[in-house]
């Protein structure tokens, strides 16, 4: 246990760090908007069905393609209009938030976990373990990701967890490379030597001594990554490879909107896209800010 040395100082240092982060965030202004938007989207994702004005899957063939703010059934209002089957666009957007955020974050959890473990093993053991892991990563990156995803999803079929798996596996290399580089440099540091001298097991050294010290930069990658995974999820849903058709997603809503585009039913095409864009933009802004905050030297690079 090498980390109990830092325990007494940790609590106040942690709080000070949080305060510093909050101040920096207010100063930078945009990240605050990003956080507020993402909080709202998360609430929509978690409790959306509770305050959705209508059932997102309830069809209403009399009130098809109603414009935004048009009167809905039983005194309700189609806030953002209704689609070709008379379903409420706003309620469907709220449901879509659930899929986008869930898939985005779960895929990062899958990819991040694989990548971190692979990177730690690669960096700590070196040798053939390192070679094997890194070459597999090279091969994967030599393949346009979306093609890989298409091929597996066609075979595996639509489904949230298939999507999470494919998108997650698609991300691991980035994490593995960064973790490997950091592990390599930490491996010979004094505190790792100390843990070794104290007789800690290899597993304990890797996961309790090294891992906590390399997590911070990964939050930056994760933030950008969530953004790009949400974009990929939307594209795959748009192609009909996402979740089953009964679950509304932003991507599949856009796919459906194409049929009524010529008839100028713009609200079906505009709102889901705005939702995707604002979510992705928020994660990108947050990633940018996190990078500057954690390591100002990196500011002008990447």
């Amino acid at each position, binding site marked *: 246990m090498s980390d109990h040395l830092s325990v007494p100082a940790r609590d106040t240092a942690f709080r000070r760090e949080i305060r510093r982060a909050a101040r920096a965030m207010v100063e930078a202004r945009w990240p605050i908007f990003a956080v507020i938007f993402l909080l709202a989207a998360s609430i929509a994702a978690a409790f959306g069905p509770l305050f959705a004005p209508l059932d997102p899957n309830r069809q209403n063939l009399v009130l098809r393609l109603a414009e935004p703010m048009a009167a809905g059934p039983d005194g309700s209002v189609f806030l953002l209009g209704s689609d070709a089957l008379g379903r409420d666009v706003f309620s469907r957007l709220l449901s879509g938030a659930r899929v986008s955020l869930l898939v985005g974050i779960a895929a990062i959890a899958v990819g991040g976990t694989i990548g971190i473990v692979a990177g730690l093993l690669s960096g700590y053991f070196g040798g053939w373990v390192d070679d094997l892991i890194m070459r597999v990563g090279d091969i994967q990156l030599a393949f346009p990701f*979306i093609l890989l995803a298409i*091929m597996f999803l066609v075979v595996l079929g639509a489904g949230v967890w298939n999507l999470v798996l494919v998108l997650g596996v698609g991300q691991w290399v980035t994490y593995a490379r960064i973790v490997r580089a950091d592990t390599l440099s930490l491996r010979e540091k004094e505190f790792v030597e100390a843990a070794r001298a104290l007789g800690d097991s290899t597993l304990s050294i890797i996961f309790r001594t090294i891992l906590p010290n390399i997590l911070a930069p990964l939050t930056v990658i994760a933030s950008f990554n969530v953004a790009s995974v949400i974009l990929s999820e*939307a594209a795959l849903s*748009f192609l009909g*490879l996402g979740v089953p058709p009964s679950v509304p997603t932003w991507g599949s809503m856009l796919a459906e909107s194409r049929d009524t585009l010529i008839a100028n039913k713009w609200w079906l095409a*505009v709102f889901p896209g705005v939702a995707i*864009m604002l979510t992705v933009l928020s994660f990108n*802004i947050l990633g940018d800010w996190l990078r500057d905050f954690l390591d100002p030297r990196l500011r*002008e690079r990447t």
Partner: protein
Amino acid sequence: MGSYILRRLLQSIVVVIGVTLVTFFALQAGGDPTYLFVSERASQEEIETTRRALGFDRPLHVQYASFVGDLARGNFGQSLSYRQPAMDIVLEALPATIELTIFSLVIALLLAIPLGVLAAINRGTAWDGSITTFAMLGQSIPNFWLGIMMILFFGLYLRWFPISGHVPFIAPMMAGDFGTAISNLPRTILHLILPGIAVGTYSLARNTRLIRSSLLEVLEQDYVRTARSKGLPEMRVLIHHALRNAWLPVVTIIGLEFGFLLGGVVVVETVFSYPGIGRLLFAAINQRDIPLVQAGVILLAGIFILLNLVVDLVYVRLDPRMKLMEGRG
């Protein structure tokens, strides 16, 4: 340098083997692949016949060996929906996809350089602010949605551009009919503008940021300061000293760029009913035409690997520092 080229070639071969492994095992990922080739109501007997006809009753390594053998002989299987060799159909759609990819690459690179430079030399001003904001937005817009929005605005509302279709340029060129190719060109480009912007914007945004930050870094180097203190005009310093080095990081990512662009092309083609490989894949996905999906994916992956190899080899020639790396492996 010879050893680097050799190593890079070997690496590409390993990657190609990896691609065949992945495409082969993708089929097995969902369990017995026979079910992908029969209708849902097929009888047990039909399933058995299909299994034997397609060779799925053999051991996996035998199947893989014959799969690779078929690929090597250019046999990618029969498309289930067209009843023709899958690769023929994909190759027919390839020129249109190449046109779109090149057009969007031109947008992504040619516009990124002036924008990135403009932002870097005016660092901290309104120019810089609006260009970086634009780049941030460009990286956050789904390409297919951008396509849909442009169809709504420039296609249906302003009626400036056609919203679908394609006028071939490469295809008549390859057939030796240069007259048709040349007379088609203006309309080819007109049809490429909206889908090209939709595909290229993400890369454009990323490259703009990359060039900006790369140039900012170079501008602080000693040799730039020396050039300035010699009293050289700012424009000359910028072009001869700074840009020369600032664009190297961009060259390294051109190869990867193709990957992004190809991915974008696949989706955006569907939006614009553009008759390339992407739309073909989309149709094949919906009809569960597995051989066609495989042929399309393998072809695009192959092109991507080849381009990456070429870009890396060109890079060795461009960056003199690479020669020094030789001994270090």
